[in-house]
């Protein structure tokens, strides 16, 4: 490992966190120097010093190897988690070490699972820091780093190839160098638009900024205890549905649609599959809510059903009602949509609907091959012909995803799992959805889970956010014999 290049680039990632800590100090100052000001200031000083330290010695960026690239990605995330937990740990309150770590990992990975029972009792600056972790994590710590690295640097290309989902790179013929900018532009536009929409719908500026960070990152942290339900406004709920849906669509596709002012790119087969699935599952969920014994009006049933389906599919995790009192079928629907989630190239987590399409097509082709062994079939996705080498990594990823859910659930059970959330919690964490069903549902939290189980869930969140391979690559490079 080249420590010079790794330390310098991890330093950049930490400086981004330090910048947002400083902004949170500003919020604290505006809010009458609340109780989180000193913890945030200390955290900023420590993070800034550690981030800037390598710059004293490492001036030029040497060439980056593949191993270094994976190391930069893994360490950037890990150190962001550690330093991001400092404001919580230093502030105290409900945050012991494990809770601070959980909240930090959940924030940076844009999972949105929380241990907090009373968010509104937190100082505003800490709530802002919480939302900022979503903002940083939504775009990806490494994408922030890439925005700073000069465009001509060969390192940029290599890191971009590693950080961005392999599926998102294939589309829209944009080079990796430009992809980073497209991601950043679309992301920032989403933040700005959602902020303005929330303001127009009657939110105050603080709630609007926190929720716009959260919805754009597909995170789910809210500044209110009852999430979106606390606003009691169908307009805000509909705005949230729209932005949750938009942020779960490929950013390149949105960019091309906007740049060409044509709806042609929206005829993408993956997007069509995604939208049709969302509509079908929303209708089934809403109807099952309507015909349950919850005595909901048609409008409320459809709003609740659609909101939660989009919230879980986009891995955002906002809540509009308490789904722990829902019947079994809509709960099952929510768990089902949190498996495949949104499109690749967006801020969503999970397996990605692109992989689901590839998997279904591969299964169909296999059945056809079994029925007609002598026929040669070709698999198409839009205009593109998919070969075995295109399909293989995605099918392998799906297998690995489910294997990890299984391992994580078994580990949780080994450590007791007193609340019976081993499977649903592992799935919600690995898919970066955040809330699941039951007491960890849309209005619940993870506070009752034991420390070890919280740690397992945070490991799942990390693996899910970086799409497993980089972490495995780092581990294998550490333990591999020379």
């Amino acid at each position, binding site marked *: 490992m080249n*420590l*010079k290049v790794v*330390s310098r680039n991890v330093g950049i990632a930490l400086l981004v966190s330090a910048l947002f800590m400083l902004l949170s100090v500003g919020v604290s100052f505006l809010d009458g120097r609340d109780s989180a000001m000193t913890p945030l200031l*200390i955290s900023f*000083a*420590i993070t800034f*010093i*550690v981030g*800037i*330290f*390598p710059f*004293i*010695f*490492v*001036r*030029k960026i*040497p060439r980056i190897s593949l191993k270094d690239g994976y190391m930069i990605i893994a360490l950037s995330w890990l150190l962001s988690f550690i330093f991001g937990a*400092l404001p919580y*740990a*230093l502030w*105290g309150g409900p945050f*012991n*070490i494990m809770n601070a770590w959980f909240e930090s990992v959940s924030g940076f990975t844009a999972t949105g699972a929380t241990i907090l029972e009373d968010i509104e009792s937190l100082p505003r600056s800490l709530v802002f820091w919480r939302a900022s972790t979503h903002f940083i994590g939504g775009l990806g710590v490494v994408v922030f780093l890439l925005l700073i690295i000069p465009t001509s640097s060969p390192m940029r290309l290599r890191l971009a190839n590693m950080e961005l989902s392999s599926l998102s790179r294939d589309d829209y013929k944009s080079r990796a160098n430009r992809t980073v900018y497209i991601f950043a532009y679309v992301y920032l536009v989403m933040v700005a638009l959602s902020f303005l929409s929330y303001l127009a719908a009657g939110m105050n500026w603080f709630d609007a900024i926190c929720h716009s960070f959260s919805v754009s990152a597909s995170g789910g942290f809210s500044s209110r205890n009852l999430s979106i339900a606390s606003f009691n406004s169908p307009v805000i709920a509909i705005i949230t549905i729209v932005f949750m849906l938009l942020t779960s669509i490929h950013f390149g596709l949105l960019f091309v649609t906007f740049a060409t002012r044509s709806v042609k790119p929206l005829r993408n087969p993956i997007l069509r599959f995604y939208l049709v699935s969302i509509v079908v599952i929303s209708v089934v969920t809403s109807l099952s809510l309507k015909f349950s014994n919850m005595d909901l009006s048609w409008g409320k049933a459809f709003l609740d059903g659609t909101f939660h389906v989009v919230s879980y599919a986009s891995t955002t995790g906002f809540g509009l009602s308490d789904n722990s009192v829902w019947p079994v079928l809509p709960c099952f629907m929510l768990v089902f949509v949190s498996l495949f989630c949104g499109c690749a190239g967006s801020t969503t987590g999970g397996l990605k609907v692109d992989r689901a399409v590839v998997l279904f097509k591969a299964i169909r082709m296999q059945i056809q091959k079994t029925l007609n062994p002598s026929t040669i079939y070709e698999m198409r996705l839009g205009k593109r012909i998919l070969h075995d080498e295109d399909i293989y990594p995605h099918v392998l990823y799906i297998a690995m995803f489910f294997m990890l859910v299984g391992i994580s659930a078994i580990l949780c059970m080994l450590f007791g799992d007193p609340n019976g959330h081993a499977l649903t919690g592992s799935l919600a964490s690995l898919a970066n959805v955040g809330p699941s069903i039951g007491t960890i549902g849309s209005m619940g939290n993870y506070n009752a889970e034991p420390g070890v189980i919280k740690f397992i869930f945070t490991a799942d969140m990390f693996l899910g956010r970086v799409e497993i391979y980089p972490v495995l690559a780092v581990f294998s490079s550490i333990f591999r014999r020379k």
Partner: protein
Amino acid sequence: MIIFAFMFARLRNWWREFRLSLRIKITLSMSAIAIVLLMSSIISILEYKRMSNYVSDMIADDIRNIHVAQRLVDAVDTYNLQVLAVIGDDKLSSLPDFDRTGFLSYCDSLRAGFGEGNVIPMADSVLYAYSAYMLASMELEDVLQSNFIDTRDWYFTRLQPLFGRLRAYLDRLSGEMYAELQQNSENFDSGFYRSIIPGTVAVAVGILLVFLLMFFILAYYVNPIYKMHRSLGDFLKYRHRYTYTFDSSDQLGDLNADVMELTEENRALRRRNSALRDSNKTEDES
């Protein structure tokens, strides 16, 4: 926007051309470590002071609350014994007196001492039971004056159950207070655990920076000096060319470039010298 972009471009160019000297690099890195260590010590002192105040206040409050609860029990017991004595004597002249203001102020101080939890509801229950007991005990004078009420019967059927209830509530209040004290002690444990975190983190960061500094000094100064020394030795011993270069933007890099230049000049001089010597030899021979 244009001004911002212009300023950013200027800043970027300045940063590209900006070079830190060896002295500044060492000073900055050492200062960074010193700041982190200073912060860790300040945090530790502040936390120690906070914990020390917290512990003193907590112990003082606990002692005061236990003392107050004991006084309440004593006051009620003493009054009840006095009532029993009056009933035993059957004399109206020595009616017992109860310090009601003191009792109520003790209850209020208990309520104020505990912000939340079960102590306050229990203190309220004590007050209700106390009111009932006091109302009943006020009947004592009438009971003693009356000819047709049996005083002892009145005590056992009317006053004693109320006393028993008040006493039970006082016992439960003490129990709740001990539970609160236990909770305080547990909070203190977690608070103490938390108070050492900032210092520990700052020290850990300090250690991390020390290791990073060690690595950078080894990578950027010690190893190049060793290699320069070896290359220079090879040049002197075996007349190998001095070709060692390394990535540096400070005086060590300049020094290496100077050494390379000097060795090249030296080589050129030697070559010229030997060429001159050869030409002199040829001239001598001819």
